[in-house]
Protein backbone atom coordinates (compact mmCIF):
# COMPACT_ATOMS: atom_id res chain seq x y z
CA UNK A 1 0.00 0.00 0.00
CA UNK A 2 2.79 2.40 0.92
CA UNK A 3 4.72 1.25 -2.15
CA UNK A 4 1.77 2.00 -4.43
CA UNK A 5 1.35 5.52 -3.04
CA UNK A 6 5.09 6.08 -3.46
CA UNK A 7 5.05 4.80 -7.05
CA UNK A 8 2.02 6.88 -8.10
CA UNK A 9 3.43 10.07 -6.59
CA UNK A 10 6.82 9.49 -8.22
CA UNK A 11 5.32 8.84 -11.64
CA UNK A 12 3.14 11.96 -11.48
CA UNK A 13 6.05 14.16 -10.44
CA UNK A 14 8.28 12.61 -13.13
CA UNK A 15 5.69 13.37 -15.83
CA UNK A 16 5.45 16.95 -14.56
CA UNK A 17 9.24 17.26 -14.69
CA UNK A 18 9.27 15.95 -18.26
CA UNK A 19 6.61 18.47 -19.26
CA UNK A 20 8.69 21.29 -17.79
CA UNK A 21 11.90 20.22 -19.55
CA UNK A 22 10.64 19.45 -23.07
CA UNK A 23 12.97 20.44 -25.87
CA UNK A 24 16.14 20.11 -23.83
CA UNK A 25 17.81 17.54 -26.08
CA UNK A 26 17.53 15.02 -28.89
CA UNK A 27 16.43 11.85 -27.05
CA UNK A 28 13.05 12.38 -28.77
CA UNK A 29 12.56 15.63 -26.84
CA UNK A 30 14.69 15.36 -23.72
CA UNK A 31 18.39 15.11 -23.00
CA UNK A 32 19.72 12.09 -21.08
CA UNK A 33 20.95 14.19 -18.17
CA UNK A 34 17.50 15.77 -17.68
CA UNK A 35 15.83 12.35 -17.66
CA UNK A 36 18.27 10.92 -15.10
CA UNK A 37 18.01 13.96 -12.86
CA UNK A 38 14.22 13.88 -13.23
CA UNK A 39 14.08 10.28 -12.05
CA UNK A 40 16.21 11.08 -8.99
CA UNK A 41 14.07 14.12 -8.10
CA UNK A 42 10.82 12.20 -8.70
CA UNK A 43 11.95 9.45 -6.29
CA UNK A 44 12.80 12.02 -3.61
CA UNK A 45 9.50 13.88 -4.09
CA UNK A 46 7.57 10.59 -4.08
CA UNK A 47 9.17 9.62 -0.78
CA UNK A 48 8.43 12.95 0.89
CA UNK A 49 4.96 13.69 -0.47
CA UNK A 50 3.31 10.25 -0.74
CA UNK A 51 1.15 10.68 2.36
CA UNK A 52 0.01 14.19 1.39
CA UNK A 53 -0.61 13.46 -2.28
CA UNK A 54 -2.65 10.27 -1.78
CA UNK A 55 -5.20 9.84 0.98
CA UNK A 56 -6.26 6.17 1.07
CA UNK A 57 -8.13 6.22 -2.24
CA UNK A 58 -6.97 5.74 -5.82
CA UNK A 59 -10.19 6.82 -7.53
CA UNK A 60 -8.44 9.69 -9.36
CA UNK A 61 -6.32 7.14 -11.30
CA UNK A 62 -9.43 6.33 -13.34
CA UNK A 63 -9.01 8.08 -16.73
CA UNK A 64 -12.80 8.45 -17.16
CA UNK A 65 -12.78 10.89 -14.24
CA UNK A 66 -10.07 12.94 -15.93
CA UNK A 67 -12.05 12.94 -19.16
CA UNK A 68 -15.18 14.12 -17.32
CA UNK A 69 -13.07 16.80 -15.64
CA UNK A 70 -11.88 18.03 -19.03
CA UNK A 71 -15.45 18.09 -20.41
CA UNK A 72 -16.55 19.99 -17.29
CA UNK A 73 -13.75 22.54 -17.70
CA UNK A 74 -14.42 23.21 -21.37
CA UNK A 75 -18.24 23.04 -21.24
CA UNK A 76 -20.32 24.26 -18.28
CA UNK A 77 -17.40 25.77 -16.35
CA UNK A 78 -16.13 27.93 -19.18
CA UNK A 79 -19.64 29.15 -20.06
CA UNK A 80 -20.34 30.02 -16.42
CA UNK A 81 -17.02 31.84 -16.24
CA UNK A 82 -17.77 33.92 -19.34
CA UNK A 83 -21.17 34.82 -17.83
CA UNK A 84 -19.46 35.71 -14.56
CA UNK A 85 -17.17 38.13 -16.29
CA UNK A 86 -19.95 39.85 -18.22
CA UNK A 87 -21.86 40.06 -14.91
CA UNK A 88 -18.92 41.64 -13.09
CA UNK A 89 -18.38 43.97 -16.05
CA UNK A 90 -22.02 45.09 -15.76
CA UNK A 91 -21.62 45.69 -12.02
CA UNK A 92 -18.31 47.51 -12.46
CA UNK A 93 -19.90 49.91 -14.92
CA UNK A 94 -23.30 50.46 -13.23
CA UNK A 95 -22.25 50.00 -9.60
CA UNK A 96 -25.43 48.04 -8.71
CA UNK A 97 -24.54 45.66 -5.89
CA UNK A 98 -26.50 43.95 -3.11
CA UNK A 99 -23.91 41.89 -1.23
CA UNK A 100 -24.35 39.28 1.46
CA UNK A 101 -22.84 36.08 2.84
CA UNK A 102 -24.97 32.93 2.53
CA UNK A 103 -24.37 29.40 3.77
CA UNK A 104 -24.96 26.40 1.52
CA UNK A 105 -24.64 22.64 2.07
CA UNK A 106 -23.49 21.12 -1.23
CA UNK A 107 -23.31 17.60 0.26
CA UNK A 108 -19.82 16.73 -0.98
CA UNK A 109 -17.70 14.50 1.19
CA UNK A 110 -14.10 14.46 -0.03
CA UNK A 111 -11.50 17.20 0.38
CA UNK A 112 -10.72 17.27 -3.34
CA UNK A 113 -14.39 17.63 -4.26
CA UNK A 114 -15.01 20.51 -1.86
CA UNK A 115 -11.82 22.24 -3.03
CA UNK A 116 -12.91 21.98 -6.66
CA UNK A 117 -16.38 23.27 -5.82
CA UNK A 118 -15.00 26.21 -3.81
CA UNK A 119 -12.67 27.18 -6.64
CA UNK A 120 -15.43 26.81 -9.25
CA UNK A 121 -17.74 28.96 -7.15
CA UNK A 122 -15.12 31.66 -6.81
CA UNK A 123 -14.68 31.82 -10.58
CA UNK A 124 -18.39 31.82 -11.50
CA UNK A 125 -21.16 34.44 -11.49
CA UNK A 126 -21.17 36.84 -8.56
CA UNK A 127 -19.99 34.42 -5.89
CA UNK A 128 -16.83 34.06 -3.79
CA UNK A 129 -16.24 31.34 -1.24
CA UNK A 130 -15.26 32.88 2.09
CA UNK A 131 -15.15 30.12 4.69
CA UNK A 132 -15.81 26.43 5.18
CA UNK A 133 -17.13 24.40 8.08
CA UNK A 134 -14.66 21.54 8.39
CA UNK A 135 -17.07 19.12 10.06
CA UNK A 136 -20.14 19.45 7.87
CA UNK A 137 -18.44 20.67 4.64
CA UNK A 138 -20.79 23.66 4.46
CA UNK A 139 -19.54 26.58 2.43
CA UNK A 140 -20.01 30.25 3.30
CA UNK A 141 -20.29 32.24 0.12
CA UNK A 142 -20.10 35.98 -0.48
CA UNK A 143 -22.73 36.77 -3.05
CA UNK A 144 -22.58 40.09 -4.88
CA UNK A 145 -26.26 40.21 -5.83
CA UNK A 146 -28.43 38.34 -3.30
CA UNK A 147 -31.80 37.19 -4.62
CA UNK A 148 -34.82 37.46 -2.33
CA UNK A 149 -36.13 33.97 -3.20
CA UNK A 150 -32.94 32.41 -1.87
CA UNK A 151 -33.31 34.08 1.53
CA UNK A 152 -36.75 32.63 2.38
CA UNK A 153 -35.69 29.14 3.49
CA UNK A 154 -33.01 28.74 6.14
CA UNK A 155 -30.95 25.88 4.67
CA UNK A 156 -30.32 27.82 1.45
CA UNK A 157 -30.91 26.13 -1.87
CA UNK A 158 -27.45 25.56 -3.44
CA UNK A 159 -28.84 25.74 -6.99
CA UNK A 160 -29.09 29.54 -6.77
CA UNK A 161 -25.37 29.86 -6.12
CA UNK A 162 -23.76 27.01 -8.05
CA UNK A 163 -25.96 25.85 -10.91
CA UNK A 164 -25.46 22.09 -11.18
CA UNK A 165 -21.77 22.14 -10.25
CA UNK A 166 -22.05 19.73 -7.27
CA UNK A 167 -23.47 17.05 -9.59
CA UNK A 168 -20.54 17.39 -12.01
CA UNK A 169 -17.97 17.41 -9.23
CA UNK A 170 -19.52 14.37 -7.58
CA UNK A 171 -19.03 12.52 -10.87
CA UNK A 172 -15.44 13.78 -11.22
CA UNK A 173 -14.00 13.59 -7.73
CA UNK A 174 -16.16 11.29 -5.57
Amino acid at each position, binding site marked *: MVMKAFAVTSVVSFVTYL*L*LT*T*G*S*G*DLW*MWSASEIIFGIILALIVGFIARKIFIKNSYRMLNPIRWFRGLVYLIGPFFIA*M*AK*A*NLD*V*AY*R*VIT*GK*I*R*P*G*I*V*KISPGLKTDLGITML*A*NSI*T*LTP*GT*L*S*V*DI*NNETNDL*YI*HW*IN*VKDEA*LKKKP*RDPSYVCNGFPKWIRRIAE
Partner: protein
Amino acid sequence: MVVTIIIYTMLAIGIFFNLLGSIGLLRFPDVYTRLHAGTKCTTFGSMFLTGAVIVYGLKEWYLHPVAGSSIMPLHVFIALIAILVTNPTGAHAIARAAHKSGVLPVNAVVDDLKEDTTKEKTKKAKEAKK
Protein backbone atom coordinates in the same frame (compact mmCIF):
# COMPACT_ATOMS: atom_id res chain seq x y z
CA MET B 1 -2.65 35.66 -41.43
CA VAL B 2 -5.72 34.06 -39.83
CA VAL B 3 -3.52 32.98 -36.92
CA THR B 4 -2.29 36.53 -36.44
CA ILE B 5 -5.88 37.81 -36.33
CA ILE B 6 -6.77 35.14 -33.74
CA ILE B 7 -3.76 36.12 -31.62
CA TYR B 8 -4.62 39.81 -31.72
CA THR B 9 -8.30 39.16 -30.91
CA MET B 10 -7.36 37.05 -27.90
CA LEU B 11 -4.91 39.70 -26.70
CA ALA B 12 -7.60 42.36 -27.02
CA ILE B 13 -10.17 40.32 -25.06
CA GLY B 14 -7.61 39.54 -22.37
CA ILE B 15 -6.54 43.14 -21.95
CA PHE B 16 -10.18 44.28 -21.88
CA PHE B 17 -11.05 41.95 -19.00
CA ASN B 18 -7.87 42.78 -17.06
CA LEU B 19 -8.76 46.46 -17.46
CA LEU B 20 -12.28 45.77 -16.13
CA GLY B 21 -10.72 44.03 -13.14
CA SER B 22 -8.59 47.08 -12.39
CA ILE B 23 -11.57 49.45 -12.69
CA GLY B 24 -13.54 47.15 -10.40
CA LEU B 25 -10.77 47.33 -7.80
CA LEU B 26 -11.15 51.09 -7.76
CA ARG B 27 -14.95 51.27 -7.86
CA PHE B 28 -16.20 48.61 -5.46
CA PRO B 29 -16.76 49.56 -1.80
CA ASP B 30 -15.21 46.77 0.31
CA VAL B 31 -12.66 43.96 0.27
CA TYR B 32 -15.07 41.18 -0.77
CA THR B 33 -16.55 42.91 -3.79
CA ARG B 34 -13.05 44.01 -4.78
CA LEU B 35 -11.96 40.41 -4.65
CA HIS B 36 -14.79 39.58 -7.05
CA ALA B 37 -13.32 41.96 -9.61
CA GLY B 38 -9.74 40.96 -8.78
CA THR B 39 -10.19 37.21 -9.22
CA LYS B 40 -12.77 36.65 -11.92
CA CYS B 41 -11.67 39.29 -14.37
CA THR B 42 -7.95 38.71 -14.01
CA THR B 43 -8.30 34.94 -14.31
CA PHE B 44 -10.49 35.20 -17.40
CA GLY B 45 -8.25 37.87 -18.94
CA SER B 46 -5.10 35.91 -18.21
CA MET B 47 -6.71 32.84 -19.78
CA PHE B 48 -7.02 34.73 -23.05
CA LEU B 49 -3.55 36.29 -22.79
CA THR B 50 -1.94 32.89 -22.17
CA GLY B 51 -4.13 31.45 -24.93
CA ALA B 52 -2.68 33.99 -27.34
CA VAL B 53 0.85 33.01 -26.31
CA ILE B 54 0.00 29.32 -26.72
CA VAL B 55 -1.36 29.90 -30.24
CA TYR B 56 1.76 31.90 -31.14
CA GLY B 57 4.03 29.20 -29.71
CA LEU B 58 2.21 26.43 -31.59
CA LYS B 59 2.53 28.42 -34.82
CA GLU B 60 6.29 28.85 -34.26
CA TRP B 61 6.61 25.14 -33.42
CA TYR B 62 4.76 24.26 -36.64
CA LEU B 63 6.84 26.63 -38.81
CA HIS B 64 10.30 25.99 -37.26
CA PRO B 65 10.26 22.54 -35.68
CA VAL B 66 13.70 22.70 -34.04
CA ALA B 67 14.57 21.45 -30.57
CA GLY B 68 13.37 23.98 -28.03
CA SER B 69 10.45 25.49 -29.92
CA SER B 70 7.99 23.30 -27.99
CA ILE B 71 9.01 24.95 -24.72
CA MET B 72 6.84 28.05 -24.92
CA PRO B 73 3.33 26.59 -25.49
CA LEU B 74 3.84 23.81 -22.94
CA HIS B 75 5.25 26.07 -20.25
CA VAL B 76 2.53 28.66 -20.77
CA PHE B 77 -0.10 25.92 -20.56
CA ILE B 78 1.32 24.82 -17.21
CA ALA B 79 1.33 28.45 -16.08
CA LEU B 80 -2.36 28.71 -17.10
CA ILE B 81 -3.25 25.67 -14.97
CA ALA B 82 -1.31 27.19 -12.06
CA ILE B 83 -3.24 30.47 -12.42
CA LEU B 84 -6.58 28.60 -12.56
CA VAL B 85 -5.80 26.75 -9.33
CA THR B 86 -4.02 29.41 -7.29
CA ASN B 87 -6.04 32.54 -8.09
CA PRO B 88 -9.35 31.43 -6.51
CA THR B 89 -7.47 29.79 -3.64
CA GLY B 90 -5.68 33.03 -2.87
CA ALA B 91 -8.93 34.98 -3.04
CA HIS B 92 -10.53 32.51 -0.65
CA ALA B 93 -7.61 32.89 1.77
CA ILE B 94 -7.85 36.70 1.71
CA ALA B 95 -11.64 36.67 2.17
CA ARG B 96 -11.44 34.20 5.06
CA ALA B 97 -8.67 36.16 6.78
CA ALA B 98 -10.62 39.42 6.32
CA HIS B 99 -13.79 37.95 7.84
CA LYS B 100 -11.91 36.36 10.74
CA SER B 101 -10.23 39.65 11.59
CA GLY B 102 -13.61 41.39 11.71
CA VAL B 103 -13.94 43.14 8.36
CA LEU B 104 -17.64 42.84 7.55
CA PRO B 105 -19.17 43.31 4.08
CA VAL B 106 -20.47 46.83 3.49
CA ASN B 107 -24.29 47.13 3.06
CA ALA B 108 -24.71 43.38 3.54
CA VAL B 109 -28.25 42.07 3.11
CA VAL B 110 -27.50 38.83 4.96
CA ASP B 111 -24.47 37.41 6.79
CA ASP B 112 -24.82 33.74 7.73
CA LEU B 113 -21.16 33.40 8.63
CA LYS B 114 -21.32 36.14 11.26
CA GLU B 115 -24.47 34.58 12.75
CA ASP B 116 -22.84 31.17 12.98
CA THR B 117 -19.58 32.39 14.48
CA THR B 118 -21.42 34.46 17.13
CA LYS B 119 -23.56 31.39 17.93
CA GLU B 120 -20.44 29.29 18.43
CA LYS B 121 -18.84 31.95 20.58
CA THR B 122 -21.88 32.23 22.88
CA LYS B 123 -22.00 28.43 23.10
CA LYS B 124 -18.36 28.28 24.11
CA ALA B 125 -18.83 31.08 26.62
CA LYS B 126 -21.77 29.21 28.21
CA GLU B 127 -19.73 26.02 28.42
CA ALA B 128 -16.85 27.90 29.99
CA LYS B 129 -19.21 29.32 32.63
CA LYS B 130 -20.42 25.85 33.56
